[in-house]
C-alpha cells in the first residue's frame, strides 16, 4: 500500500487515498464521485470553524438526549456517547438495489435453514452442511428440536454487516441473527443530521428511514396469534445496565410498547403475564433483547437474574411468541457463515447476490495448516463471539498474541475461523478539525415479517482511530448517517 501522490485542498489537506482500498468519496484520480460531488463542494465552502461548530452542536444534542452506551469493565463513567461523525456516507440507488435484493435472499434462506435444522435437518442428511458443525455450535439449542415457531419465522430482526471491497462491490462480513443492536443510532444520527445540515439534506434526495418503528411493529404483530386482533406486545430488556439500554427505551417509545424487565413478567400455567398496576395482563409477543442463555433460568442458565422462569415452556406451548426465536445463533456462527452461499443455493436454487468473504475453517485440517502458517496476514475470529471481542488482526498483532492464538486454535479448532485482512472501504470523516479518511462498514437492518423490509441504509460504523479496522463501539468505533439516494 502506498500513499497516493494526489494532493487535496483544505479542509481535505490531510486526506489520503490508499491503493487496494475503495474510497467512498473519491475515484482513484482524486476527483469526487458523482453522488458525492455536491457534498464535496459544500465542504470546500465551509470553514473549519463552521464544521467544528456543527460537530459540537451534534455532540451536545447526543449528550443532552442521553444517547449513550455502556462500556463494560469500567467503574467510572460507564455511560459514553457513541461518537458521531458529521459527514454522511452516501450510497446510490443502484448500489442499494443490489444490497436489498441480496439481503432479502439471504434472510429467506437463513430462515428456511433454521427451520430445517430444528426439524429433521434435510440439509444435513443431504450432506450440504456437515452435521458435527451444527451440533457442536454453542448456539445450537437442542430444546428447540421439533418446536414450531409462529409462521416459521426464526429471525424477525437481523443486522447484517457489509463491507465494501477494493473493487467497489459489497460483501457480507457477518450476520447477526440473535439480538442485533444499533438501529437506534441509525435513527438518531438521521435526526441530528437533519438539524445540523438541513439545506444540504433537503436538496440531496435522501430516502427516508423514519418508518422503521412502524415496520418493526408490523413485523412483531405478524407473530401474534391470528385470532387475537389486538395482541399485547412487549420489549424485554436486561435492564439499565445493559450496553444497549438506550436503544431499548428508544424502540419501546417509538412503537408505543411496554418496556419490561424479567422481573415484570411471570409465568402461570404456561401463560406469560406482566405485572401492572391494574393487575396481571397476558403477553402475546415478546421482542426480547436478552440472549438465549439468560432468558429463562429454568431452561438455560440457572444463575440468570435477568430472565423469566418458565418462559421457555410457555413458548414451547405456543402461548407466547418470541422475536427472535430461540436458537437462531447457530446460523450466525462464524463457521456456519462459510456455508451460507451453499445454504442459499440449496433452499432457493439461486446464486448468492452478495458474496461472502473468503473464510478458512480451522476445523478443516488443510485450512488450519494454512491459517497457522499465515497468522500474520489473517484475521482470526472466535466463532461464537460478537462485538469485536475474541479477535486477532494479524498484521497489527504482536508475536506473543499470534502464539496465543496458535495455541488456542490447536486446542479447539472448531472455535476459530480466519479471513484475509480486508481493507474496509474508507470514507471522509471530520476528525480533529480536519477531514480525513477512515475505514467504514455498513449494517443494514432487515425485518422479516409478512414480507422482508429493509429501511434504506443502515448504520455506517467508523473506525475512528487512524488506520484501525475495528468499527465496534466497544473498541473505539463511531458512526455516521447513511444516505441512500433516490434514482
Amino acid at each position, binding site marked *: 500500500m502506498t500513499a497516493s501522490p494526489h494532493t487535496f485542498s483544505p479542509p481535505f489537506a490531510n486526506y489520503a487515498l490508499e491503493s487496494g482500498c475503495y474510497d467512498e468519496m473519491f475515484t482513484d484520480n482524486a476527483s469526487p464521485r458523482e453522488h458525492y460531488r455536491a457534498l464535496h463542494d459544500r465542504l470546500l465552502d465551509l470553514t473549519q470553524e463552521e464544521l467544528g461548530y456543527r460537530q459540537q452542536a451534534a455532540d451536545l444534542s447526543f449528550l*443532552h*438526549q*442521553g444517547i449513550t452506551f455502556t462500556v463494560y469493565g469500567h467503574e467510572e463513567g460507564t455511560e459514553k456517547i457513541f461518537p458521531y461523525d458529521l459527514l454522511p456516507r452516501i450510497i446510490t440507488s443502484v448500489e442499494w438495489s443490489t444490497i436489498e435484493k441480496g439481503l432479502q435472499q439471504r434472510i429467506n434462506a437463513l430462515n428456511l435453514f433454521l427451520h430445517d435444522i430444528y426439524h429433521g435437518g434435510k440439509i444435513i442428511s443431504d450432506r450440504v452442511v456437515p452435521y458435527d458443525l451444527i451440533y457442536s455450535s454453542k448456539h445450537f439449542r437442542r430444546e428447540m428440536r421439533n418446536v414450531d415457531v409462529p409462521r416459521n419465522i426464526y429471525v424477525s430482526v437481523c443486522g447484517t454487516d457489509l463491507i465494501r471491497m477494493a473493487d467497489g462491490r459489497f460483501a457480507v462480513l457477518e450476520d447477526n441473527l440473535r439480538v442485533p443492536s444499533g438501529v437506534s443510532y441509525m435513527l438518531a444520527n438521521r435526526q441530528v443530521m437533519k438539524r445540523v445540515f438541513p439545506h444540504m439534506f433537503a436538496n440531496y434526495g435522501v430516502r427516508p428511514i423514519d418508518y422503521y418503528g412502524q415496520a418493526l411493529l408490523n413485523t412483531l404483530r405478524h407473530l401474534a396469534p391470528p385470532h387475537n386482533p389486538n395482541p399485547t406486545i412487549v420489549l424485554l430488556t436486561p*435492564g*439499565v445496565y445493559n450496553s444497549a439500554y*438506550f436503544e431499548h*427505551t*428508544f424502540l*419501546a*417509545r417509538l412503537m408505543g410498547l*411496554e*418496556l*419490561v*424487565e424479567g*422481573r*415484570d413478567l*411471570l409465568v*402461570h400455567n404456561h401463560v406469560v403475564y*406482566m*405485572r*401492572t*398496576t*391494574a*393487575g*396481571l395482563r397476558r403477553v402475546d409477543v415478546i421482542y426480547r433483547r436478552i440472549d438465549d442463555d439468560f432468558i429463562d433460568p429454568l431452561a438455560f442458565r440457572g444463575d440468570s437474574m435477568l430472565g423469566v422462569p418458565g418462559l421457555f415452556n410457555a413458548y414451547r406451548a405456543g402461548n407466547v411468541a418470541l422475536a427472535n426465536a430461540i436458537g437462531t445463533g447457530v446460523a450466525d456462527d462464524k463457521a456456519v457463515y462459510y456455508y451460507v452461499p451453499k445454504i442459499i443455493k440449496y433452499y432457493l436454487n439461486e446464486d448468492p447476490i452478495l458474496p461472502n468473504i473468503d473464510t478458512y475453517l480451522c476445523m478443516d485440517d488443510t485450512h488450519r495448516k494454512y491459517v497457522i502458517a499465515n497468522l500474520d496476514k489473517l484475521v482470526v475470529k472466535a466463532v461464537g463471539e460478537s462485538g469485536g471481542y475474541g479477535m486477532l488482526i494479524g498484521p497489527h498483532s504482536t508475536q506473543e498474541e499470534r502464539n496465543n492464538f496458535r495455541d488456542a486454535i490447536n486446542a479447539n479448532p472448531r472455535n476459530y475461523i480466519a479471513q484475509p485482512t480486508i481493507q474496509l472501504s474508507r470514507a471522509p470523516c471530520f476528525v480533529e478539525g480536519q477531514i480525513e479518511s477512515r475505514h467504514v462498514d455498513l449494517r443494514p437492518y432487515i425485518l422479516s415479517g409478512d414480507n422482508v423490509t429493509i429501511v434504506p441504509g443502515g448504520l455506517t460504523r467508523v473506525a475512528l482511530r487512524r488506520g484501525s479496522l475495528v468499527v465496534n463501539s466497544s473498541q473505539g468505533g463511531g458512526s455516521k448517517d447513511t444516505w441512500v439516494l433516490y434514482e
Partner: protein
Amino acid sequence: MLSRVADSLYWLSRYLERAEHTARMLDVHLNLGLDQSQGMSVRENRERLMMSMWQTAAGSNNVLDDDYRLTDYLTFDTNNPKSIVMVIAAARENARQVREQISSEMWMQINRLYLDMKCATMPEIWEHQPHEFFRMVREGSHLFQGITDATMNRDEGWQFIQLGRYIERAASIARLLDVNFNALLIDNEAGGTYLQRIGLLKSVTSFEAYCKVYHADMQPNWIVEFLLFNADFPHTIRFCIKQVCQALEDIAVKSGRGTNNRLQRVAGRLQSSLSFDLVDDVLSGDLHRYLFDIQHQCDLIHMALYETYITYTIEASA
C-alpha cells in the same frame, strides 16, 4: 401501567422533593446563621436541622462543628445517602429506569440537574454564593415539575409522580414541626425568636403565604395551625394529603382496582382528621404525638400503596 414503572416514578418524584427540601432547609439555615447573635446555640440549630431530615451525625462527628462541614455533608458527601448529590443521582437513576415512560423533556431536565450537580464542588459554592447554588437546585426541581405538568399525559404515571411528591412533603413538614416546635416557644431575645419562626416558615416556602393569612405576627400556635390545616397552600400537610387522596382516587379508577380497599381507607382517614380536627385540641393535647402520628400514617399509606399496586401476590390480582 407496569408496577415497576409506577414504583420508579413514585420514587423519582419523592427523591426530587427530598433534594429540594434539603436545599431549602440548608439555604435558610445558612442565611439565619448570618444574623444570629452569640447567645444562640448554633450547634443546637445544626442538630435540629439534621434531625428535621431524619439524619444523624453519627459516624461523622465533626459535621456539627461548623457550617462548612455541615453543608458539605448534606450536599456533596457521597457516603451520605441523603446528601443532595446522592438523592438527585437516585432520582435520575429512577428516571433512567423509565425513560420511555416520561417525556424526553423531563428526562433532559433531570439529566441536566444531575450533570450540574456533578460539576459543582464545595469550595466553589462556598467561595461564591451558596445561596445561588441552592436556588439552582430548587429551581431545577421546580422546572422539572413544570415540565412534567406541561409535557406528560395525565395518566397513572403522572398520578404516581404526584403521590411521591406529596407524601414526601407531608411527612417532611410533620417532621420539621415536630423537631422544631419547642425551639419556637423559647423567647430569649426579641430578634432571635422572630428569626427562628420565620426560618421555619421559609424552610417550607410558607412565609409569604402565612403573612397573607396572619400578617407578620409570628405566633407558634398559628404557625402550627397554618402548616397543619390550611387548605389552600401547597406546602401544608392538609393540602398535601388532599392531593394524595385525589391521586389515589384517580389511580383507582384508571387501573380499575376500585376504591374499596385498605389504601383508600388509610389515606381517607388521615385526610378527614386533617380536615376536621380542631387546632385547640391538638395544641392542648400532645402535639408531638399528633405530629408523630401523621408521619406514621404517611408510612401506612406508602405500605398500602405497595400492597395494592406494586408488590401484590398472584392470588390478590385475580
